[in-house]
């Protein structure tokens, strides 16, 4: 049988959860302790930022850009899930 039968709706849900997970990573309490703070990444103006710096950049930009739309999308999803299960 189809082991992982995906629907487009499942993909949307997975994407929403993933973006939520990235948005929840707190800058001060968590990322700095791990060593993934944004000040530690942007060093120098060299050619190749490297994978770690790119990842930190990506996390920070996702957090900045998606904060407000995530509020809206999450609210809509909560209401829809409450109504339609």
């Amino acid at each position: 049988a189809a082991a992982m039968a995906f629907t487009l709706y499942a993909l949307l849900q997975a994407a929403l959860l993933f973006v939520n997970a990235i948005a929840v990573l707190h800058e001060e309490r968590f990322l700095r302790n791990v060593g993934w703070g944004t000040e530690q990444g942007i060093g120098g103006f060299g050619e190749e930022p490297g994978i770690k710096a790119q990842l930190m950049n990506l996390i920070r930009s996702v957090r900045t850009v998606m904060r407000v739309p995530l509020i809206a999308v999450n609210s809509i999803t909560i209401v829809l899930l409450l109504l339609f299960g």
Partner: protein
Amino acid sequence: GDVAAAGSQGPVRGARSERPARESARAGGPQLIVIPTHKAPRGWARAEPAMAYHQGYGGQGSKHRGRGPLVPPAPDPHQLFDDTSAGFPHAQGTPGSGIDMGFNTLLADPMANVAVAYGSSIASQGKDIVHKEIHRFMSVNRLKYFFAVDTAYVTKKLALLLFPYAHQNWEVRYSRDTPLTPRQDINAPDLYIPSMAFITYILLAGIALGLQQRFSPEVLGMCASTAFVWVVIEVLALLLSLYLVTVQSDLTAFDLLAYSGYKYVGMILAVLGGLLFGSDGYYVALAWTSCALMYFLARSLRMKLHPSLVPDGMGHPRGAGRGQTYVTLGAAACQPLIVYWLTFHLVR
């Protein structure tokens, strides 16, 4: 859309000659056409801006309709009596008898004409709106590039997908900074083969499931959406990894969609082999198409990601070249896994 608008403008233009006379006679008729009146002038002005007397004509028409059923209005100078050559002589006569006798023709034709004109104007407005909205999300010209294929290209590309080991020159040729269309360059990616192969794969999956008595229409839809979702996931993963490795390449999302969609051809062959020759045929076809697909993808992506590897180029191998190689090899290695995952449940 264009053909329909042009076609609907034909009878409208032809019937316009009869309309001025009929409008004047119809003022005594039932006030059936209410909606298009205040909209007609604007719509007609947009649909055919060349016709100068439109707005005046439309305004006259609405004025006539609003005046009430009593008086047959005197023909005003805006209505061109010259155009009523082919016309209906009874429309010029007593409006009562004209309307009684020619009730059906008078009612059907003007209403149909107005409806056609209104519909064509609405259609053109809707088309503009749809175009604007679509242009905000994706560039249609960019999409058209991927579907500019012809038969020779398709046959050669299919042969290349199944036996890429003999091909020498993998470079995508450019002409004045724009990549050549697939018609002129066999190395260019296209979206025609992936989409056709996707549909064929869904049909084949239906056949395979039907042979195992496991078919139902919902399963078909589930299979289709599963395959599509896996391709979308793969494209997103490729985009993410390319971003992390800071590659300067001109690989757009559509290019990656095309390259990921080529695996459908391999899937079709694997399922066919499994259907025709049983389990052994499935594994043989799977092995062959996986190797061919891996080689094809590795060479194509490497050529697109490493412009410095052009023989006459003066590029120096950067440190990020290592990451690019990893991405290419990783993408190539994931192909047989996905192909296997999506097809093994069809061949038992």
